[in-house]
């Protein structure tokens, strides 16, 4: 049969009609729809019985109790631990999204050594044996060359077991250079030491206080005490007053009963001004000052030198004068002072903000307000928590090389005559290295916790300094900015994979030790930094080996926490509720055995100069005409400003007028914006003495005219593409300025100019 067009046509049409009448097309249609419902690239998580493990979040120093939900060996979700004394179930977004970091692309998946140039991002996988022997060899070599003190170690804490092991290791090895990364705790701890004579943290009984006067604290804007504070705020009744002193309407200010918009950098003046009113009107706890106060009145020392007291100091801070400095109405200052004085359980709070914003002087001025209110060791008041005492092992024997090394001056200058009471001056480290002739004073740097190349005040010069260090080891869990510049990566497990003790977080009014526990088995080939230190010590042999008689970190921790271990294993935390002494008798360990309004120890640091009745405040460098605005960093709880960057979830919560694509927005008052011809969303160039940045503009009525506010925590290069490259690091735009009293960085902002790009 000839197949012609007609035949072909009828064949096709007939075939089509015929097929439609069979179930085939219908079945196929159904199958295709079912296929779209089961796409293989849409994951189907495995089910199983859920377990809930109590632990603690260690992503910042806040120490919030968590409960991790697991299924098999998978960590599913982090929730707050309702009975935990720190946070009572409250968590910040970072803690809740911790599983994203656990399984995320920013993890370092095993030990590696650098394969290309520094910072090039080329790595070669190595074994743990090779990794540890590389470290051992390097350290042994420096020791044989008699340079153990050229080894420095940077950590984000000096309080937990890893920090203790590191410090012990350095001392046994022969280096005084244990350095803690900068944080807002630095000035607080120093001020605490100066006025109370105690090493520890200051705690506020937020829950019971009826008047919280916060000097710019980012209480609910992502400071490390956010868990505590949000939990307390949740329980607060409407009668409790929260007063926020800040130039920007932060979330804390927005929730406060009163927002006091003082100019930034004038908090110390305001605290002294409030003190002025209280002293002038006699609104202070005379009994407390009589029995426990020192330098409230003018005094003379044994040699007959006269020193002014607090009363004289604040005389100069009349509301009229302070009104000018702070830009607040006199009335506000007067009424604020009175309201504070009249509250039954007031606390004045400082710290808890960007690392530099609270100088030692500010802390001392705020402590003085608490002293005037006589609220120490009282419910709703201020408490002093000592450094953890559980980490006290017998002194070890060290060899001559070690003791010679230990006697060398610290590279960062802390503890020298000039900064006698400052323990760590991380921000001076880059300068010390950059200004040295010839070899870097640091020959080997161990970075265990913290992310100095991001958190140091001047990241550019820190990076330059790091380039001069021949050997950098990073113990980071994540490919952070510091790990990127390291030679050797010895990744520490994620906190959901290992044991870690967490001592009392700053702000807590009682001692709380928490224990992070392995919620899941390690996902990657990581090793606990504590284990690595112990193993390295063993490899080095001799006295160093003998100083570490423990099998590993877990063994060390169990033995260290022997009494508390069981409680910690069971409920995840331990408190001293029953055993604490709240009397004032033994509270003050200054040489006067009293609370020192104007600490003697503090004045000694300033040499022979007789402190005038004027407190030094940090002024910003730069020409006012050229740089008419002021750039201030701000914290937000949705952007992690610290060592560990945002999880993708956190960034997802950030509004489009804070980050859009890769751009960060700076907040400007509409009035200021119109002066510079800027409107909402405009691209602009921000200029400060430290550098330039491309930003976009968000007009916000809630910020003081003349200011430019930028969120901290952006401008990262490390971690993963989910955060790297977004925005700029605001601290890169603010040149550090040393607090004359302590040497700590106290640059709370920078002069700036902004123009349309």
């Amino acid at each position, binding site marked *: 049969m000839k197949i012609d067009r007609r035949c072909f046509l009828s064949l096709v049409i007939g075939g089509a009609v015929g097929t439609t009448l069979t179930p085939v097309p219908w079945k196929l249609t159904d199958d295709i729809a079912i296929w779209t*419902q089961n*796409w293989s*690239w*849409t*994951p189907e*998580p*495995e*089910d*199983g019985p859920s377990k809930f493990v109590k632990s603690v979040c260690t992503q910042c120093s806040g120490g919030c109790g968590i409960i991790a939900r697991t*299924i098999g060996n*998978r*960590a*599913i*979700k*982090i*929730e*707050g631990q309702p009975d935990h004394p720190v946070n009572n*179930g*409250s*968590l910040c*977004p970072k803690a*809740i*999204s911790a*599983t*994203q970091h*656990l*399984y*995320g*692309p920013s*993890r370092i998946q095993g030990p590696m050594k650098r394969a290309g140039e520094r910072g090039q991002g080329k790595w070669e996988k190595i074994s743990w044996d090779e990794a540890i022997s590389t470290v051992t060899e390097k350290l042994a070599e420096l020791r044989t060359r008699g340079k153990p003190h050229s080894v420095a170690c940077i950590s984000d804490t000096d309080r937990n077991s890893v920090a203790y092991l590191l410090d012990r290791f350095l001392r046994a090895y022969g280096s005084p250079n244990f350095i803690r990364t900068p944080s807002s705790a630095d000035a607080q701890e120093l001020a605490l030491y100066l006025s109370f004579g105690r090493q520890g943290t200051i705690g506020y009984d937020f829950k019971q206080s009826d008047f919280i006067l916060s000097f710019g604290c980012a209480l*609910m804007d992502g400071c490390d005490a956010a868990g505590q504070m*949000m*939990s307390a*705020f*949740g*329980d607060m009744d409407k009668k409790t007053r929260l007063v926020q002193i800040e130039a920007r*309407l932060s*979330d*804390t200010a*927005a*929730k406060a009963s009163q*927002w006091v*918009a003082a100019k930034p950098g004038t908090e110390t003046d305001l605290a002294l001004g409030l003190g002025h009113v209280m002293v002038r009107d006699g609104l202070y706890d005379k009994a407390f000052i009589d029995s426990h106060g020192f330098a409230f009145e003018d005094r003379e020392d044994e040699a007959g030198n006269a020193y002014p007291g607090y009363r004289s100091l604040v005389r100069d801070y009349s509301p009229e004068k302070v009104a000018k400095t702070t830009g607040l109405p006199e009335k506000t200052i007067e009424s604020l002072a009175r309201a504070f004085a009249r509250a039954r359980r007031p606390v004045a709070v400082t710290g808890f903000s960007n690392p530099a914003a609270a100088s030692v002087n500010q802390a001392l001025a705020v402590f003085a307000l608490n002293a005037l209110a006589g609220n120490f060791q009282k419910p709703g008041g201020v408490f002093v928590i000592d450094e953890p005492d559980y980490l006290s092992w017998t002194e070890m024997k060290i060899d001559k090389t070690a003791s010679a090394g230990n006697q060398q001056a610290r590279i960062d200058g802390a503890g020298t005559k000039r900064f006698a009471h400052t323990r760590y001056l991380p921000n001076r480290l880059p300068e010390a290295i950059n200004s040295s002739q010839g070899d870097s004073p640091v020959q080997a740097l161990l970075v265990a916790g913290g992310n100095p190349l991001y958190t140091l005040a001047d990241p550019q010069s820190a990076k330059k300094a790091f380039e001069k260090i021949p050997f950098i080891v990073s113990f980071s869990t994540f490919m952070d900015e510091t790990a990127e510049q390291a030679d050797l990566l010895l990744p520490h497990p994620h906190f959901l994979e290992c044991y870690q003790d967490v001592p009392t977080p700053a702000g807590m009014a009682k001692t709380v030790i928490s224990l992070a526990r392995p919620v899941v088995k390690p*996902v990657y080939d990581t090793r606990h930094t504590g284990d690595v230190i112990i193993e390295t010590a063993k490899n080095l042999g001799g006295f160093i080996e003998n100083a570490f008689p423990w099998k590993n970190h877990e063994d060390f921790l169990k033995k260290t926490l022997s009494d508390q271990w069981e409680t910690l294993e069971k409920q995840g935390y331990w408190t001293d509720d029953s055993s604490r002494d709240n009397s004032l008798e033994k509270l003050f360990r200054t040489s006067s055995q009293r609370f020192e309004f104007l600490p003697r120890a503090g004045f000694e640091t300033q040499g022979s100069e007789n402190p005038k009745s004027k407190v030094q405040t940090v002024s910003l460098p730069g020409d006012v005409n050229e740089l008419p605005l002021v750039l201030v960093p701000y914290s937000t*709880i949705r952007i992690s400003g610290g060592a560990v960057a945002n999880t*993708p*979830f*956190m*960034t*997802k*919560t950030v509004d489009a007028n804070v*980050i859009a*694509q890769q751009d960060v927005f700076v907040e400007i008052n509409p*009035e200021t914006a119109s002066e510079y011809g800027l409107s909402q969303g405009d691209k602009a160039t921000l200029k400060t003495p430290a550098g330039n940045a491309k930003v976009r503009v968000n007009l916000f*009525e*809630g910020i*003081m*005219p003349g200011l430019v506010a930028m969120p901290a925590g952006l401008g990262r290069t490390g971690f993963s*593409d*989910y955060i790297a490259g977004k925005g700029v690091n605001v601290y890169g735009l603010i040149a550090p300025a040393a607090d004359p009293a302590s040497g700590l960085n106290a640059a709370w902002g920078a002069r700036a100019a902004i123009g349309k790009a």
Partner: protein
Amino acid sequence: MAQQPQHTKTKRYGMVIDLDKCTGCGACMVACYAENNVPFRQDDSDKMRSLNWIRVMKVDNGKAFPDTEVCYIPMPCMQCDGQHMQGHSPCVSVCPAVATDYDYPTGIVSQIYTRCFGCRYCMAACPYHARKFNWWDPKWPADMEKYLNPDVSARMRGVVEKCSFCYHRYQKARDKAYVEGRDELHEDEYQTACTQACPTNAITFGDLYNPEHAVHSLSRSKNAFRLLERLNTNPKVYYLSSKSWVRRVADNYLEGENPEQVAKARKAAATH
């Protein structure tokens, strides 16, 4: 649409959010992402294409410095009861394929992802923008698939999703109660992930019909209101605020209208 319930007592699960307590921290959003396997993207800054079952809106009173005030308004799916309180919620009535439904026993508006074919009519119908479309295939980089919650299925590209009041938690609680031979759930047995995560306890969740549940009295308090009440969507998410300007931005008012009076008139009309 489903039929009226027969055996169990009808519940009306709802939420009361105290805006005076909300600090805008975003914990509710993150807890929701984690609980409900909400995907994320490298650039999630296009908020109109970013998957969120609960969004926290930042609103200000429009006054100049330093009289500015800011309020955060968390917006989950409002689980509307619809006009005449009969489950005729704006979205359910328009879905052509019954991919979203009003569950009469709980009052929860469901979404069946495998049924939805992505016409987005429900999104057009929802005045709260509570419904979100999967513009992309979800992607969990590195080992992130490991944290996915098996109680909630991952969604594929091309379908609409929204807050379910953590319905899977309700199912679990109900199953547990059933095994234990109970008819009723305790208030704390079924709580949404956002309620549980809110660090300041600004969110309260429970059965609005049950006088023993906190939401019952909270939703009837003087400061309680709902968003866009005048549209007659009858949301089950209530808000509390002591500030009158907040109340005013929660709905639309003509010049000269006063939110309290409008609310009073509405209530009077409803009782007749």
